[in-house]
């Protein structure tokens, strides 16, 4: 009964989505106020039905209703409650339901938090988001119904993929989806602005906080995924340039460009057409990511089960949404006349460069991801593009960007004095170069120019960002007052950029100074790596709730002093799926990482993988800083204030026009 209720709720949600999209869009076009007013209640009703549908599926999981095919395939009675709840989004059908729910949540949020935006605009935004919802709900109801019943009810459900039985991964997809889908708001604002024919600074101001929040979710989602891969896959890597990872990274890059470009459009009214295009791109890449993951066109270690008919549906959907918006763009963008002028040395140029670099980077990642597909389609053979491609393209592209981070923020809008800026930044530059060159020589085991570059860039960003804050300290105010007077947007930028600096330190030092060794160890044997002695005590067998495991004990010491004991595990789940649980000792300046390979012979010897990874935590720490920055910027008070003013003006003008 409950699953049928969920199914009906989904169908009702689809009906509501149709109402939510068609009536307000037509109403806004023809200027019928009562139709425009339908937008908010319809979107909220859609959200209600989505919550009911989602609740029904969760309920089916919690009561182990194995007559529901999806529940039977993704859970069993032995599973802890946490994984019953996360099992809901653990596989294809459920994750789509979650996608759609997220979309409804964002739409609901728009109806609640956009009181300061004119009603006609909100109606268009809600309408566009409704159209996307219609597509997703149709997809679900036609090809991937999560409430499908089995005729023969199995007594016990199937194991959830043990890789997914992990708290980190339980919350990784929701975060990622919130980010992906969040870009639909920026997208909807852009489309709505084009539909309304008013591509001015106002739409940029409205969509900025939404873009920031979506970006924060995406950042956290990607960071969680990377952290999960690091400790769960047992390979010690934190990023694999896997197509599925790239699918989440490309929208992130373009989203980052969008945040910066929105700033220019809001403050200076420049780059209008470009910003709209970026908003379309960011969401398109989110959709493309879904397509790549769900249709199975790409081989990936992460791929869920594939189904061609689903692929065809998503491709048509993708073509309609993106093709339609690009068509609208080609028509509307041509009408925009940009009269804003700026000098070569100005913040606009800095942000333009930022955008160009980010978009080129996103394109190169896209190319690397799709290249195997394109060659195969042309019949030119089967290839794979490995991580070295991405690394050798990504690093040279982003190093200049990191350098620009420092200067961009310090440049003035419209026009700045290049020479003056140059002179002012000489000390910062000298300190950064010096610190970069010296640090590896003093602290690192071997000298590396890469490490020098990393440390130098990070220092440069920190110094110039600090300079930005000091520059605000004018007219003899105290530092404390300056800090108080700096708007949240400014703090957001500082935190975001500091996050980049921390991230650079983490990435460069980890990739250069990590030491990895696969060794054969007998009980009682020692191995030295990165200054640490790993003492292998042996492996014991044990039984877990739904697996049998082997647990190793390794004592790690440095200079004769005991540091830590880690217990890596090797598990064999009842499905026959083996899993490696690494033993990790986390630290701010280094991680020690031990993973069990396999038993070798009968004398208790094992193949063991040992890692010493300096500064690897800084990678995720940097992401947390960036996310904080995004949140601070999104919560800046002036959006709400300015928006209210605009609304007043807007209402007056509509009254005047009527």
């Amino acid at each position: 009964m409950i699953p049928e209720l969920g199914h009906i709720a989904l169908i009702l949600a689809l009906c509501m989505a149709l109402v939510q999209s068609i009536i307000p869009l037509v109403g806004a076009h023809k200027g019928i106020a009562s139709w425009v007013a339908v937008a908010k209640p319809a979107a909220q009703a859609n959200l209600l039905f989505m919550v009911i549908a989602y609740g029904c599926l969760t309920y089916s999981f919690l009561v182990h209703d194995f007559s529901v095919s999806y529940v039977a395939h993704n859970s069993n009675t032995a599973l802890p409650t946490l994984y019953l709840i996360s099992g809901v989004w653990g596989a294809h059908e459920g994750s789509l339901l979650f996608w759609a729910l997220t979309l409804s949540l964002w739409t609901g949020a728009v109806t609640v938090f956009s009181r300061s935006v004119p009603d006609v605009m909100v109606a268009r935004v809600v309408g566009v988001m409704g159209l996307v919802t219609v597509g997703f709900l149709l997809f679900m109801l036609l090809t991937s119904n999560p409430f499908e019943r089995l005729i023969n009810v199995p007594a016990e459900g199937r194991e959830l993929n043990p890789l997914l039985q992990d708290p980190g991964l339980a919350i990784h997809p929701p975060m990622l989806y919130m980010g992906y889908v969040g870009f639909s708001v920026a997208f909807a604002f852009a489309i709505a602005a084009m539909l309304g024919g008013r591509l001015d600074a106002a739409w940029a101001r409205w969509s900025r906080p939404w873009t920031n929040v979506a970006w924060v979710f995406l950042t956290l989602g990607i960071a969680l995924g990377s952290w999960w891969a690091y400790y769960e896959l047992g390979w010690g890597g934190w990023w694999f340039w896997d197509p599925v990872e790239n699918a989440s990274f490309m929208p992130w890059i373009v989203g980052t460009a969008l945040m910066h470009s929105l700033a220019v459009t809001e403050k200076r009214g420049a780059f209008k057409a470009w910003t709209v295009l970026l908003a379309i791109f960011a969401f398109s890449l989110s959709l493309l990511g879904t397509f790549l993951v769900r249709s199975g066109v790409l081989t990936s270690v992460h791929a869920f089960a594939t189904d061609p008919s689903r692929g065809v549906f998503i491709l048509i959907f993708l073509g309609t949404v993106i093709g339609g918006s690009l068509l609208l763009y080609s028509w509307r963008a041509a009408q925009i006349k940009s009269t804003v002028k700026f000098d070569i040395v100005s913040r606009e140029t800095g942000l333009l460069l930022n955008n160009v670099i980010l978009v080129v980077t996103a394109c190169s990642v896209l190319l690397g991801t799709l290249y195997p597909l394109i060659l195969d389609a042309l019949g030119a053979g089967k290839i794979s593009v490995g991580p070295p491609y991405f690394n050798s393209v990504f690093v040279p592209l982003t190093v200049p960007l990191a350098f620009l981070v420092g200067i961009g923020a310090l440049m003035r809008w419209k026009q700045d004095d290049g020479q003056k800026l140059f002179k002012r930044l000489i000390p910062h530059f000298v300190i950064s170069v010096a610190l970069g060159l010296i640090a590896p020589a003093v602290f690192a085991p071997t000298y590396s120019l890469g490490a020098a570059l990393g440390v130098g860039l990070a220092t440069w960003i920190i110094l110039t960002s600090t300079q930005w804050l000091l520059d605000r300290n004018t007219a003899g105010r105290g530092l404390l007052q300056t800090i108080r007077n700096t708007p949240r947007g400014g703090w957001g930028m500082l935190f975001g950029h500091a996050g980049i600096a921390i991230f650079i330190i983490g990435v460069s030092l980890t990739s250069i100074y990590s030491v990895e060794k696969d060794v054969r160890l007998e009980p009682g044997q020692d191995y030295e790596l990165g200054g640490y002695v790993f003492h292998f005590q042996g492996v014991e067998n044990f039984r877990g709730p739904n697996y049998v495991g082997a647990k190793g004990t390794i004592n790690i010491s440095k200079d004769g002093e005991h540091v830590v004991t880690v217990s890596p595990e090797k598990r064999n789940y009842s499905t026959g799926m083996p899993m490696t649980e690494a033993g990790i000792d986390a630290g701010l300046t280094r991680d020690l990482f031990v993973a069990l390979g396999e038993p070798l012979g009968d004398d208790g010897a094992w193949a063991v993988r040992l890692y010493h990874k300096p500064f690897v935590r800084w990678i995720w720490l940097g992401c947390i800083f960036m996310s904080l920055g995004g949140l601070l910027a999104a919560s800046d008070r002036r959006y709400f204030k300015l928006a209210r003013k605009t609304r007043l003006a807007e209402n007056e003008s509509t009254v005047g026009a009527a």
Partner: protein
Amino acid sequence: MKARHKRLGFVVAGLVGLGLATWLVVNALDNNLSYFFSPTEVKQNKAPAEHIFRLGGLVEAGSLERGKELTIRFNVTDNAYRIPVAYTGILPDLFAEGQGVIAQGKMGTNGVFIASEVLAKHDENYMPPEVADALEQSHNAATGAN
């Protein structure tokens, strides 16, 4: 006149940047692609002698041999031909005899493929499409010969 020069400057800088980026991408693609070959194709000398490539097929049952240290030897087969593979390190969790595998590496001088990386399929329902394709082709060849 001045505005025009400025615009020209932007365009030239943009083109130069774009050219550099393209060069970077093309260069990196050129050096870091690895083509996929089946054991049959390797036997037919279609695989490059000096360049890294990916060898895919099934791990032949009964062929897995462990050395004293961490070196492992096994045969990769597409049921038409087999290629011996040597790999030093820890095998992925899902590596097993009779299962699909992709090994990345170079041909050694003695006809042994020296793998630097071994990838096993990710779950029981999933076979890497390249492997499926290679098996299909060797099947083609086998039935074509009949």
